[in-house]
């Protein structure tokens, strides 16, 4: 009896692995949420005949899964939000360097790994949003300025546990140094009007009803909220225009080192960096395309042009641990 069960299950396993091998497909481990990638992946399958299978989860968890699967991993591509996460994946040596003319042409240098192990696919800006009833545009300038005493009990922030804030602080460390950044974070914590929120959307809603006057958020959260409720007294302010420029970050991807289909995977990334896919990829979440030949969504364009920081995003990963420690020390929850 046991032998029969064993044989049958073996056969099933063999057949299922054949069945999988027979179909052209790529496997993506994605920290970008299903509703933001599904349509695009289906489009690729329709156009190129390659099925994109995906599983979603948190970046650190997906990375751990790839690490523990080792050589047997079924993943071909890791897609995550935030360059910090991609940097860690490269650091743990799960990503393969990719040589591609198309990718190099479509993606500006500061949005990708200097060693070509990961590539940004959409850009998000993390900037200041303010309550128009309570703040004059002229009073705003940089992230740094929000640490000043005039913002006491007026600032609302998201938790320091979110990687977006970790990357922001890491980039501040990179430009201003550790001591200066520490006093900025300390100032922010002092100025908080309420304990940090668990999401950007919550912080925005609180600014809109006047619990605080300003906050730092990713612009697509602002876009989403305004789409639902266009009458909110909220406005975007492009931070640090006199300095390094707005802190930007990417969602991006890399090819898994142990993938059996590296060529296919690169082709898919190239397709994602081209005009048509870029438009869909960015617009799905009201982000900015990485490919400069592609215009952002009309609504996003309405926010006006801005200067962005062009420091390579690998820095965000490199300094992430220091940023977290610094925020812990200053009691930024």
């Amino acid at each position: 009896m046991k032998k029969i069960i064993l044989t049958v299950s073996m056969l099933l396993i063999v057949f299922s692995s054949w069945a999988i091998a027979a179909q052209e497909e790529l496997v993506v481990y994605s920290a970008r949420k299903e509703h933001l990638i599904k349509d695009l992946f289906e489009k690729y399958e329709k156009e190129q005949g390659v099925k994109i299978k995906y599983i979603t989860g948190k970046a650190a968890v997906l990375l751990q899964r790839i690490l523990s699967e080792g050589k047997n991993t079924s993943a071909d591509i890791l897609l995550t939000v935030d360059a910090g996460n991609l940097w860690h994946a490269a650091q743990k040596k799960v990503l393969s360097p990719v040589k591609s003319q198309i990718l190099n042409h479509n993606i500006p240098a500061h949005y990708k790994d200097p060693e070509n192990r990961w590539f940004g696919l959409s850009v998000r800006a993390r900037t200041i949003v303010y309550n128009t009833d309570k703040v004059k545009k002229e009073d705003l300038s940089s992230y740094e300025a929000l640490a000043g005493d005039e913002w006491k009990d007026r600032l609302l922030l998201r938790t320091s546990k979110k990687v977006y804030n970790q990357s922001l602080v890491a980039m501040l460390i990179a430009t201003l140094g550790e001591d200066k950044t520490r006093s900025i974070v300390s100032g922010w914590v002092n100025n908080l009007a309420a304990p940090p929120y668990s999401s950007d959307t919550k912080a925005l809603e609180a600014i809109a009803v006047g619990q605080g006057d300003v906050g730092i958020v990713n612009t697509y959260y602002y876009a989403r909220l305004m789409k639902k409720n266009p009458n909110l007294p909220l406005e975007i302010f492009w931070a640090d225009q006199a300095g390094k420029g707005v802190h930007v970050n990417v969602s991006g991807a890399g090819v898994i080192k142990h993938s059996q289909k590296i060529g296919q995977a690169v082709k898919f990334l190239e397709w994602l960096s081209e005009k048509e896919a870029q438009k869909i990829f960015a617009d799905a979440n009201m982000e900015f395309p990485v490919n400069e030949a592609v215009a952002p969504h009309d609504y996003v364009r309405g926010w006006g042009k801005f200067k962005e920081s062009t420091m390579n995003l690998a820095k965000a990963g490199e300094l992430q641990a220091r940023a977290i420690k610094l925020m812990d020390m200053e009691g930024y929850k």
Partner: protein
Amino acid sequence: MTTSIKHQGGFIVSAGIAGVILSPVLFILISGISAEPDIWLHLKQYVLPGLLKNTAFLVTGVICTTACLGVSLAWLTSFYEFSGRRYFEKLLLFPLAIPAYVMAFIYTGLLDFSGPVRTFLRAHTPELGAFFPEIRSGWGAVLVISLAIFPYVYLMASSGFRSMSRSMVEASQSLGGGRLFTLLRVTLPMARPWIFGGLILVFMETLADFGAVSVFNYDTFTTGVYKAWYGFFSVNAASQLASILVIIVLLIFATESYFRKKQQFYNRGSQQQIQRQTLNGMPHILASAFCTGVFLISFAIPVGQLLVWAIEAFEVEFSTHYGKLVTNTLFLGLMGTAVTISVAVILAYSGRLMKDMKTGAVAKLALSGYALPGTVLAVGIVNVVAGVDKNLLGALNVLGIPISGNILQSSLVLLPLCYMIRFLTAGYNPVFSNMTRITPSIDEAANLMKISGIKLFSKIHLPLIRRGITTGSILVLVEIIKEMPVTLMLRPFGWDTLAVKVFELTSEGEWERAALPAITLVLAGMIPVMLLSFIGRNKERNKK
């Protein structure tokens, strides 16, 4: 009575189960030893003190709140008659279907500064609005988590009260013991194993919770574990912190079984059910009002809010995909339950056969998975399984079977196993408590009639613990339906569940859209919860 071979058998079975369960826990403990010292130092200096304080506050708060709510409600509905009692008995189980993380996002949505309640207060009575306490605080977390999990205590305490014999209570009352005296000196002590069982579930659930506290941004031990992992990308440091959780749980187990040892008793004559006293006047009104209030706050209001959101977001969010999500959720739930409850019965039964320290201790060890944050447990499992996979692949390739990829890891075998490790306690406790109904005299009688072995189990013991098994299965099923982190990490392709969908949307701050999978999840969870109340009623009827 039983032979020595059987004695050994019981121990070996328990040890085997504990071995399987402990392998991932061991992995965590071992990788905890080799943690990166600089991260550990940082955490110890700046993060841990706050986390410990918060965790202690949260756990104590939730245990006290759920004990008060659960026991008082169980006491009212078990011993007294008042209007609506028959309905409340069942309705009060309903909150079990709402995951704590969902309860958390509903209540922060309602009671945050920008939420409808405080906005209304600010507009109409500014003085009141200004004094409204911050929901995103320790108190808020305690209240909201308690609302989601008090039914465990209620359920277990009710079982305890109902399997109590009438003679005890009557004896107390005929000797002049008042209501309060009877409650404190007779009823509560008799129901202690059940109440403890419920509170231990609550304790472990609170300790392992990540979803709810992260909505509050209230940092607990679990938050620290995830910070080490998601922030510092150090699974080792995360494991080190998680090891402390495991050790705390084992200590609690040890104390609990020490106290339980001192108090060994069996129930006899459970046939005579307690007659409910009819309440009149003020006590009657208060009892009904109390039950109504708890039901409203813990179920009706949250579900109402979910419905409002779900209807608003229905057009954007609904797709045919939902059918698949529901069937996935239920299928994984049933598979996991079958595995978990079988193991729970085997474990409880071997423990009973053995009655010695070492089997008891081994059984306790096997229950420790419940307090581990799901994702941490999943890491342990993934690593153990990856090791097995590699060896299995090697062996198969040597045998000439060409297979590539992960066999176990990408298969459906892993999830039920993982659910078992995580939720064994939920299944084990009711079964174990119920075993106290098998008195030694039943064994002796069976022995005289030469009934032993399998027959003794299936014909005599099993029917006696059926209620425990049903209760256990249903609790486990509800748990698995609500489970998020393990499913998120270990599901094979195409096995997204409702909880996964809720995670995807809430982590993007899309509360309204998340309401749709959440309300579906609550409805799916209602199926086992309804069964639970239905079984309770049937049982009672049979008795009459």
